[in-house]
């Protein structure tokens, strides 16, 4: 990219990019950077309903909130279920999305359109309505799933694992379309000659995928993987709506919902913020891995 060299430059040229960037930077500073700073700050204070209403002075606790969070068995249990749940969601989403993307390239226009439209429908469904619809499908009394499977009035949200499983189904359902369509767009951009050559050499479809398509698609696969990690790690609405705020006795809590419950239900804003900071750090670690991957692929920023 050669950019501006050799072009007649108005005198304001040096300022122009910053002028264009100004609105974005102002918005991001005020509504993203500043809240992140505030989050860190609140996490260091004793901050409960008494402080919020101004009744009592805020007390600096240092890392006291973090000590409380890390000292609580519940936190580690929630962290573990968050990681395992998010990982399973990512794996299933990617597997389903990639498999269906390949399938899309193997069929004629009509089945392709049908699958594409169905996927767009699932993608377009808002998280809240997707959650209520899946609950309805699996409702012990009125849902069709138990009837078809002959499960009687088995309640899916009662057990810890079956509740997580139900949420996982909904999450995969509404997030595989992004993967499928992105990967499909990527495959379509692969030159036909490359695939023909591979086929003439007698490569099997699996071999073509592994040796030709997958390497060419790696940048795309990296993007969809990271996006899935970010989205699934932050699942909130589905858990909140489908398990009634975190499941029976909090058995289905994930970090997000846990932080929210601590802050807004228990008015422990300091503790909730500390959990938020832990989450932020975890996701930033993922970002660094992503950046390294991009670098290694020689991607130009």
């Amino acid at each position, binding site marked *: *990219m050669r950019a*501006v060299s*050799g072009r007649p430059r*108005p005198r304001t040229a040096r300022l*122009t*990019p*910053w002028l*264009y960037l100004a*609105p*974005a930077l102002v*918005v*991001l500073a005020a*509504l*993203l950077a500043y809240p*992140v700073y*505030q989050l860190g700050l609140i996490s260091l204070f004793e901050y409960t309903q008494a402080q919020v209403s101004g009744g009592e002075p805020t007390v600096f606790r240092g890392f006291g909130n973090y000590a409380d969070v890390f000292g609580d068995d519940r936190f580690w249990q929630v962290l573990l279920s968050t990681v395992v749940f998010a990982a399973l969601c990512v794996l299933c989403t990617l597997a389903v999305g990639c498999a*269906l993307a390949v*399938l899309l*390239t*193997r*069929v004629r226009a009509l*089945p392709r359109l049908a*699958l594409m439209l*169905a*996927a*767009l*429908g*699932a993608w*377009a*469904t*808002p998280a*809240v*309505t997707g959650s*209520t619809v899946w609950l*309805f499908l699996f409702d012990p009394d*009125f849902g069709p799933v138990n*009837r078809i499977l002959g499960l009687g009035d088995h309640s899916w949200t009662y057990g810890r694992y079956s509740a997580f499983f139900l949420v996982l189904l909904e999450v995969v*359902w509404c997030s595989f379309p992004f993967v499928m*369509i*992105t990967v499909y*767009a990527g*495959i*379509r951009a692969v030159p*036909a000659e490359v*695939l023909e050559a591979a086929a003439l050499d007698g490569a099997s*479809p699996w071999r*073509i995928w592994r040796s030709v398509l997958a390497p060419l698609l790696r*940048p795309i696969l990296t993007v969809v993987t990271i996006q899935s990690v*970010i989205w699934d790690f*932050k699942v909130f609405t589905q858990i*909140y709506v489908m398990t009634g705020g975190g499941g029976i006795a909090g058995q289905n809590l994930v970090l997000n919902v846990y932080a929210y419950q601590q802050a807004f239900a228990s008015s422990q804003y300091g503790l*909730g913020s500390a959990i*938020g*900071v832990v*989450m*932020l750090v975890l*996701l*930033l670690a993922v970002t660094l891995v*992503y950046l390294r991957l991009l670098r290694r692929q020689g991607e130009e*920023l």
Partner: protein
Amino acid sequence: MNAVRNLVARPWRLVAEAAALLTAAVVAFPLYWMVLGAFRPAGEIESGAPRPWTLAPSLDSFRRVFGQQEFGRYALNSLLVAGAVVIASGLIAFLAATAVTRFRFRFRTTLLIMFLVAQMVPVEALTIPLFFLMRDAGQLNTLGSLILPHIAFSLPFAIWMLRGFVKAVPEALEEAAYLDGASRTRFLWQILFPLVLPGLVATSVFSFISAWNDFLFAKSFIISDTSQSTLPMALLVFFRPDDPDWGGVMAGSTLMTIPVLVFFVLVQRRLVSGLGGAVKD
């Protein structure tokens, strides 16, 4: 793509097509069940014998949804929020994407990395500081408290995605425009903007969804003035965990899904090519 298709023997293609159709049916089924549930007459859902069709479609559930509360008001609020977020973040992201792709300046790479990092910030964790920020700014219980954060959250991804589209516009075009005496502003809005518009349409899908789906902020920031509430909250009135009015929930869900669905179908082509363009870069 044609090449791949020719590699597949005919019987396998038929199997693949059957699999694709079956998958489509499974994926679409929850949506079908939602619409069906919305049109079922009172008592049919509760009768416990769910047929995959209904004998007497009725609008009762929709009447209940519109009758019991200010549903129309909530829908309008949701549209206002999503519309404002799409337009504002689209324009701001266009300017920023132009800056980082068509200019070379100090801190350019740093900025790009910052936009990437900004995408990872868990929005949900920011609910606490944003709550206090909105309270201090007197924005609690206003649509502004829903619009402003979502503009900020959709910006980094929008900038990142639009980059590819701005890059794709040839430099020569810009030089030609200047030779013809066009100003920078004129080039930006009358030449570049229309060319990047397809990319903006694809990008807008993401900002639209993020704002339309908003559940957490509506729940946390609209606490006393329910006339400023949005659709998810309206839906939850019918969704009492112990005793849900499934007909009402499904009618509300259907109404909430339709605008997004319409939007998706309208931009579908743009979206597919847009994602391809963005990731090819």
